[in-house]
């Protein structure tokens, strides 16, 4: 992805939800996108699938999958890419399954619309195999979404997402609103199916603990901008950007009862972002340069990028 | 009020109804409404300068009849509509907020009441009260059923609002049940209540005209419905006395179109999501 920019037209003028985002996803890699609400992390995920709904629109940039720029594809071709090559796992809190269709039918209609011509018997076998691969009994195919628990619904969504063996799986807060025990089961399922497929995963979320335990590399978003991208271990131990450092410090740990150190100030409104670095009003080490000139993303250490003048 | 420009339906609704109001006011100044009684003009005259809307077979001047009849019909509609929404709102708010037995009773009566066509029950009542109805009696009869629909819709709205956090915060801030209904729930429902009121006025007028066309209305009053009854009674259509029914029909059209656009306009205020697609 290079210089991807997404803006929303609001009555108060255009708002940049994602501002010149660039990053590379390696095959089989687990890439995390962390950020607080309004940081633009979900916008990036939806932009990759070209599913930005009006009044939002993709202003510029490129999204290349195996060399093909998705943004320039015709609608029909993009439709075929969805699920077949790039699949989405919806948020845990959403009711992403059609309440009046059986789970099995919601897998089959995806196969059918991607021109998978198989006999009924083969199709049902495929459905059973998919459900069992995500830890669901085959009877679930006959059940309706309201008969399933939160965790089972997410597993069904994972089954749908992997039904066409995609190259990339985008999981947008897949376990939000799920209990911590169920969350662990769902994430373990996701890890296993990813290994079986050899696909790469983009995990979008705000739970730094989940990111720390699941992803290989992590990008931190703030006010629509990518401000740091490094291997997750580097982020946890010696993060570059002050915001990342303070975010990690504010996380409650189970080891020792530390003092509470939140990040002062308020999350900036995308409509009136401060000039220069968007974090400077809340940044303890901000200097004049931060207030005027917006820092670009630089490779400060091998494979560790940060957008900060002081680093 | 820049807002009005964007909410076209509201503007059209208000325009139609104020045109009607103007017609009635000017009419009262121009014509002697007593001429709406039978034998006050030569029968069956086509519209002329003397009788701008023509006259009917019983010798009523139709212009006078329209000027006198329109406010009567509107009055029935408003009384019945107000009563209907008044009772409906009280029951709707109380049953949805306090729940319990009252809610079960209200819901049962409303669910069953709505499956019974209102007009038939009104016919039963009107048939048995044979000795001539006054306009006010008519309004009360219509009102006796007009509260069902408002009760149902308001109850549904209050049920959804009742679970909101701010209702519980209000309760924990020491507000009593009735205070919460008036201060917390009602303000959010004002546009919706207004739309329900206009809607129930419109269906009340429809019910009263229906009864009158069937001959169950106040026989000697010049309301729009009774005029249509005499149109039908004297087969004005076949005899070619076109002016006799075009006047009431046009006025009724203006009344219903005005009220309809008003309801749509108010609905838009109540939930702006719909406006995006029009």
């Amino acid at each position: 992805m290079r210089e991807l920019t997404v803006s929303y037209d609001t009555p108060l003028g255009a708002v940049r939800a994602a501002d010149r985002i660039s990053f590379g996803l390696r095959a089989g890699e687990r890439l995390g996108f962390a950020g607080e609400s309004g940081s633009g992390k979900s916008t990036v995920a939806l932009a990759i699938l070209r599913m930005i709904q009006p009044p939002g629109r993709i202003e510029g940039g490129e999204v290349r999958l195996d060399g093909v720029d998705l943004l320039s594809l015709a609608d029909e071709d993009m439709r075929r890419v969805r699920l077949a090559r790039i699949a989405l796992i919806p948020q845990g809190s959403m009711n992403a399954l059609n309440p009046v269709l059986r789970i099995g039918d919601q897998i089959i209609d995806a196969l059918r619309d991607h021109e998978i011509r198989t006999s009924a018997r083969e199709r049902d076998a495929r459905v059973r195999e998919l459900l069992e691969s995500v830890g669901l009994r085959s009877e679930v195919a006959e059940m309706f979404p309201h008969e399933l628990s939160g965790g089972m619904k997410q597993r069904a969504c994972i089954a749908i997402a992997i039904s066409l063996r995609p190259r990339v799986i985008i999981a947008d807060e897949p376990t939000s609103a799920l209990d911590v025990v169920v969350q662990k089961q769902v994430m373990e399922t996701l890890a296993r199916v990813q290994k079986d497929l050899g696909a790469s995963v983009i995990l979008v979320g705000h739970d730094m603990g989940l990111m720390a335990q699941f992803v290989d590399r992590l990008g931190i978003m703030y006010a629509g901008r990518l401000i740091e991208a490094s291997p997750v271990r580097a982020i946890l131990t010696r993060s570059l950007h002050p915001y990342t450092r303070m975010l990690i410090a504010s996380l409650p740990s189970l080891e020792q009862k530390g003092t509470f150190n939140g990040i002062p100030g308020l999350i900036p409104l995308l409509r009136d972002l401060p000039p220069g670095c968007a974090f400077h009003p809340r940044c303890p080490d901000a200097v004049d340069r931060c207030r005027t000139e917006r820092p670009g993303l630089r490779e400060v250490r091998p494979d560790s990028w940060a957008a900060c003048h002081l680093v | 009020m820049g807002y009005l420009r964007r909410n076209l339906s509201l503007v059209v609704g208000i325009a139609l109804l104020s045109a009607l109001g103007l017609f009635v006011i000017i009419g009262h100044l121009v014509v002697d409404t007593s001429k709406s009684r039978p034998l006050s003009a030569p029968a069956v005259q086509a519209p002329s300068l003397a009788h701008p809307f023509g006259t009917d077979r019983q010798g009523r001047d139709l212009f006078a009849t329209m000027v006198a009849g329109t406010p009567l019909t509107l009055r029935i509609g408003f009384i019945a509509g107000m009563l209907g929404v008044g009772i409906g709102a009280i029951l709707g708010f109380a049953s949805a907020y306090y729940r319990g037995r009252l809610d079960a009773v209200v819901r049962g009566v409303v669910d069953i009441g709505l499956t019974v066509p209102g007009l038939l029950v009104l016919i039963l009542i009107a048939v048995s009260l044979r000795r001539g109805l006054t306009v006010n009696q008519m309004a009360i009869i219509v009102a006796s059923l007009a509260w069902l629909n408002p009760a149902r819709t308001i109850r549904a709205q209050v049920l959804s609002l009742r679970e909101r956090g701010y209702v519980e915060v209000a309760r924990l801030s020491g507000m009593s049940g009735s205070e919460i209904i008036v201060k917390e729930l009602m303000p959010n429902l004002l546009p919706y209540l207004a739309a329900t009121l206009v809607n129930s006025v419109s269906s009340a007028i429809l019910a009263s005209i229906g009864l009158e066309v069937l001959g169950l209305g106040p026989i000697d009053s010049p309301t729009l419905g009774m005029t249509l009854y005499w149109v039908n009674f004297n087969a004005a259509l076949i005899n070619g006395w076109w002016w006799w029914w075009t006047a009431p029909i046009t006025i009724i059209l203006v009344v219903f179109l005005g009220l309809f656009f008003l309801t749509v306009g108010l609905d838009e205020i109540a939930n702006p999501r719909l406006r995006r697609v029009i």
Partner: protein
Amino acid sequence: MRADYLLKRLGVFVLIVWLAATLNFFLTRLSGQDPVRATLLQQAQLGGYVQSGLEAMVKEYERRFGLDRPLWVQYVTYLSDVSRFNFNYSISNYPRTVNEIIAEAIPWTIGLLGTTTVLSFTIGTLLGALLAWPGAPRWMRVLMPPLWALHAIPFFLLGLILMYVFAFRIQLLPMFGGYSPGAFPALTLTFVGDVIAHAILPALSIVLVATGGWALGMRGMMVTTQGEDYVLFAEAKGLRRSTIFLWYCVRNAILPQTTALALALGNILSGAVLVEVIFGYPGVGTILFHAIRENDHFLVQGIVFTIIVALGVTTLILDVVYPLLDPRISYRRT
């Protein structure tokens, strides 16, 4: 769960039938004096019947219905009569019984009402669905405002206008009645053609008005459905637009539309009664109109009871069909 849901709906139906009978019984006695005697005496002055014969008739009625006995006894006998669908003789066209007259009129009303409701519901729902779908053809947008405005006016009003324009002015279609006077009702092609010709205007005045309403309702529901999470996920699944439109949007938006149909039946019928009166269409509405004019209490009660029960049956059918559309239903009606 399903058994007690059906039980509950049956219970409601029985309640409606009981309500219909009770309304009939008490509302007609609102005016205090007993309806039969009042009507018969009134007939006497009007028609110049032989006075003595009339007295005998009144006595016979009073004995037969036990009008002299206490009210609640009358009420019980009335209920037993009603439960056997026995509505006695029609006063105004004695010796024919109320049941005979209603039986003659019912097919006409069912024909008119059934076709117009099904037509307006399907066309309206389809139109409403397509209107809310960006992929819909342009000309549909043009069709909406007129239908929308038509929805505001009552059926009989449009009926009068259509009658004047098509029957009186252009004499394209018959103006009055269910079939041409003198035509003998038989299953011949000409007669059926004649009946259809007569039914066009009344049917049109209902369909043109009702369709706008269904379209408006469906469009509102489609707007909400398109915003749902499962439509977003369907798009992410790379489904075709047509699949999403049909199986995800329409399939979910049709549920409240069916409930709205059940609730609207009462109003549709009230409107249809007036249309029949205007067109003199030989359905239950016109019979009711004449019964009112001639103060025929038994006929009025019979018709009102039959209509309410018929509506009760239709609502029951819709309530039984509803769970087939919505698997979540363990009966949660708002």
